[in-house]
């Protein structure tokens, strides 16, 4: 196993392009573990990076963090903005705060744990292939269109650690147009927020084993008690048929 080398980089006042160039230069020099200080709004951090790299990020990273990322592990000590893990392939991201809109858009692998609330259109167009199964765990509540057009992967919505006590656990159009993958929700989901023709089902033993695995990972990443999270019913939302839109335009 190769040796790990760490470096701390200060992002204060540095334009995103130059900051990302510095990160890539350090990777070429053999650095594997990064502490990024004073990050504030720099876009594309970790975008397109591959391999066994580690990032501790302090501050608020900008749009499209970890887009197309394949492998690295990232931890954000704060909130993230929009577009986290856009089309991400592999790797693990832990966000200690909340996340903005379109998190995990078209994600194809890897795991994202968000401690708190997430914005709108999270996990839309997620997809899976063989062993590549993207997973998003949301500790708080979600905005509208969670898992819209989802084609594969797993979203687990806990609704527990939220700054919006009065909001429903998910916004409207939950899972609209999904034709693959599964959304797990802790507790109940109001029928009115579900996309057309979708229904919730109680999680079965197989589902619960998957949920337990994800919750344990989430709890250990965020220093929480997994059993407290698991002490409630879970429901599943799945596509209502194998090809729900097969006849939408041309009857087959």
């Amino acid at each position, binding site marked *: 196993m190769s040796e790990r080398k760490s470096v701390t980089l200060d992002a204060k006042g540095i334009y995103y392009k130059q900051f990302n160039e510095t990160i890539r230069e350090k990777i070429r020099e053999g650095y594997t573990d990064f502490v990024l200080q004073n990050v504030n*709004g720099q876009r594309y951090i970790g975008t397109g990076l591959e391999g066994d790299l580690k990032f501790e990020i302090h501050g608020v990273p900008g749009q499209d963090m970890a887009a197309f990322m394949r492998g690295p592990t990232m931890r954000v000590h704060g*909130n993230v903005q929009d577009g986290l893990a856009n089309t991400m392939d592999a790797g693990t991201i832990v966000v200690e705060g909340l996340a903005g809109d379109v998190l995990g858009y078209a994600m194809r692998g890897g795991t994202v744990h968000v401690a708190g*609330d997430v914005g*709108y259109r999270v996990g839309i167009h997620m997809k899976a292939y063989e062993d590549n199964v993207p997973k998003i765990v949301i500790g708080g509540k979600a905005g509208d269109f969670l898992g819209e057009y989802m084609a594969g992967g797993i979203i687990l919505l806990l609704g527990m650690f939220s700054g919006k006590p009065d909001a429903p656990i998910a916004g409207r159009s939950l899972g609209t147009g999904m034709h693959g993958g599964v959304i797990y929700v802790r507790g109940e989901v109001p029928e009115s927020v579900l996309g057309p023709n979708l229904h919730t089902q109680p999680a079965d033993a197989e589902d619960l084993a998957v949920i337990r695995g994800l919750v344990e990972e989430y709890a250990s990443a965020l220093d929480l008690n997994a059993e407290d999270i698991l002490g409630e019913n879970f429901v599943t939302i799945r596509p209502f048929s194998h090809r729900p839109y097969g006849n939408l335009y041309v009857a087959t």
Partner: protein
Amino acid sequence: MKAPERYYDFQKDISGCGVFGVINRKRGLIPGDMPIKAMACMHDRGNGLGGGFAAYGIYPEHADKYAFHIMCDDKRAVEGSERLLRQYFDIHEFEPIPTRKTLAIPDPPIVNRYFVTPRDGGAEDMLDMPEDDYVVAVVMKLNTTVPGAFVFSSGKDMGAFKGVGYPEDIADFFRLDEYKAYIWTGHNRFPTNTPGWWGGAHPFTILNWSIVHNGEISSYGINRRYLCEHDYLCTLMTDTEVVAYELDLLIRKHGLSWDMAAKVFAPPFWDEIERMPEDERELYTALRYTYGSGMLNGPFAILVADNTRLMGLNDRIKLRPLLVAEKDDMIFMSSEESSVREVCPDLDRVWMPKAGEPVIVDVED
């Protein structure tokens, strides 16, 4: 952060507009540096074809007069606009708006400001009009009849400053670092459908209303025709202009609350109305029927202000980002959290409002 030298040699990023607003609920004055720095942090949300700010509480010594900011292509436009102003107003004081020569802003128009009150008795063609209607009518008349002249601000104790450039460069040009205000809004433009010209930069204003907008108002055509029927004439070639006039029409003239006006802009879906208790169902049905032509279709995150209020609002399916943050007496609203953290690193609370639900913050008077 501001882009480094020769950033234009870098590859271009496609982006959207950026908005930022801050209000001090105790009317504590906020130096211009704050909104400027916050907007500069979101530099890449625009492309240099529009930047601007609105500031409230900047003309306390003229608080009883309408502060007209007028941009003119040439001397003839200046003469034309002044002739028209004199016809309708007493001009108490006027001066060029103080500017700084900056390389980033080549070829600016002539920008002047006039502190005015309606002439006693009014002009012949606008007799017996309520004062605010009179002022609106003069703005419309000037924008439509004086070639090359546009009013870009007409409120009391407030002002808009805008033009073609990045917001931080426009701020430099207008010396906004020398102003203090208890409400600021800022805008970074990435024009999509309409030209990037001085009049088309945000904010858009009429009387004390100002608006900055990230998004696109697809209903511009119907909104514009609706406003035309009520004597508001769109001349600035940018969709957002309709929102400024709709605010004036709905809130000042029709007496709607801000909350109801927000529901005209972003009405609840019919299926949501169906599920409401009866009186609410009746209310929202009536609102949608009455103000269908005022509804804003398309993506938007807007910040609206007048002298006592700041409001943030998203379209009802949230196609643009908007974040609200709180620190003591200050409330921030922005496209990105980083821009708020840039000027106020420690925040008491940060949240993203629900689509279509206005966040309204008042000064405590």
